């Protein structure tokens, strides 16, 4: 059977045999194996910036965290909702806008946006005894 340890590319078992890198960090490994001099991470970053030029200069900062802290927030205004429903027949609704990080009052919920009613509480299928 093939010794799968010799696969080309950053094979972990192979590296461990050759370089004893158990104390090497991810970033250091990156240096040892990159020949072009461009870290894949930086190349990926360039790709991302090309797609989203407005992406903030401070990554992983307040924006992400605020979004995380606000998970689950669902605002609903019945007046806005009914107005939007009426408008929907005629023209496009204003979209959520580029700043999706924070839920403001600007986004008017449409019937599609409203959370689906959760299904009735039923027994987990894991408990149904389907054992193979």
């Amino acid at each position, binding site marked *: *059977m*093939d010794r*799968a340890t010799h*696969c*080309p*590319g*950053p*094979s*972990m*078992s192979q*590296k*461990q045999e050759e370089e004893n890198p*158990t*104390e090497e*960090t*991810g*970033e*250091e*490994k*990156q*240096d040892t194996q990159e020949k072009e001099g461009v*870290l*894949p*991470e*930086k*190349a*990926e*970053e360039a*790709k*991302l*910036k090309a*797609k989203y030029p407005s*992406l903030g200069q401070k*990554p*992983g*900062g*307040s924006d992400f*965290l*605020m979004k*995380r*802290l606000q*998970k*689950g*927030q*669902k605002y*609903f205004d019945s007046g806005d909702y009914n107005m939007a429903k009426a408008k929907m027949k005629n023209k496009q609704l204003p979209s959520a806008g580029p700043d999706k990080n924070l839920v403001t009052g600007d986004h008017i919920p449409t019937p599609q946006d409203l*959370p689906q009613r959760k*299904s009735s*509480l*039923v*027994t*987990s*299928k*894991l*408990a*149904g*005894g*389907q*054992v*193979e």
Partner: protein
Amino acid sequence: MKCFSRYLPYIFRPPNTILSSSCHTEADIISTVEFNHTGELLATGDKGGRVVIFQREQESKNQVHRRGEYNVYSTFQSHEPEFDYLKSLEIEEKINKIRWLPQQNAAYFLLSTNDKTVKLWKVSERDKRPEGYNLKDEEGRLRDPATITTLRVPVLRPMDLMVEATPRRVFANAHTYHINSISVNSDYETYMSADDLRINLWNFEITNQSFNIVDIKPANMEELTEVITAAEFHPHHCNTFVYSSSKGTIRLCDMRASALCDRHTKFFEEPEDPSNRSFFSEIISSISDVKFSHSGRCIMTRDYLTVKVWDLNMENRPVETYQVHDYLRSKLCSLYENDCIFDKFECVWNGSDSVIMTGSYNNFFRMFDRNTKRDVTLEASRENSKPRAILKPRKVCVGGKRRKDEISVDSLDFSKKILHTAWHPSENIIAVAATNNLYIFQDKVN
């Protein structure tokens, strides 16, 4: 077949047990898996707020060749969806964590938590039923006292085993933010619950009060730079706990030092080479799980691409770093776009702290032997698991020639992620949750 032993001392037999739902809804997605302290019970929680407990069957003399399998023991609805009208907040019923209490009597106790509320559940067996009441007839209807002429003593008769789960305590309204961790203290009297910004200490007997022991909420929320991602008590020292952050740091705190443990006793952080910094650096350094070793001498942390082992006596760098799926480094852009970069993988120790395990994508999971430095990639999938065969190691290929059995990075299925795994406390039995399927693998011995 013999070459698999090259990777690890253990050879895992594909499951006698795959428990699954063939057509699953989102509610069936398993969100947590945990063995109890003896390994006799295995609990799973899912997105629908349900808990299913499996029990290992006793090995009988008749079926020596079959190791004890896990069968369904009890199932109950732990949490239900809620809506906080005051804050316009939808509260998911998804079970974030389950932690068992050590067994102290015939009943089993576990803590289960969703984003906001922790509950203590008692799981007990009933296998006897009293019969022969004087005032009630067999159907339970009251008898006319005038018709009673003799008295009898009710007797306990055996009945079919019934396993009941009852909520004994509900610890609610203590968390403004989303609970990510619970941890039972070694004193067995207290436990902690941690959300994004705060950690609270509870006494099991008291539900209307908790002590706040960590608070990292800044006075001005605009200055928020990091959140708490996981927390755990030391396995033996009831005064010590650790918590990890989204910035890749771990703080160890001693509750004897002060009532509010905002100032850490130890601070674990690996220095980063500033020239390597990219947009993704902080995101992928965020620690998704932290676990003490059973010995209590080390902690293990999981960030997006690696698993690290830290010695509690060395704060400036980990003693061991293991690459889980470094090939994803060249995919970070698309992983950011599909949000996979925010996936929270867990990690576990085996009973002797010699092997660590964590999940990856494509239903792959990885094991690292700390002594031999060998590692293996295994797959939890129905197709590759024939009964009595052996789990074949998998290999991911990055560019270049792809061998027959290997899979290329571009073919990986990122919707099949193994976030939750568990290792039996003393034996080589592992539980792997692959979306809605639970795989239980046992070590081959014979």
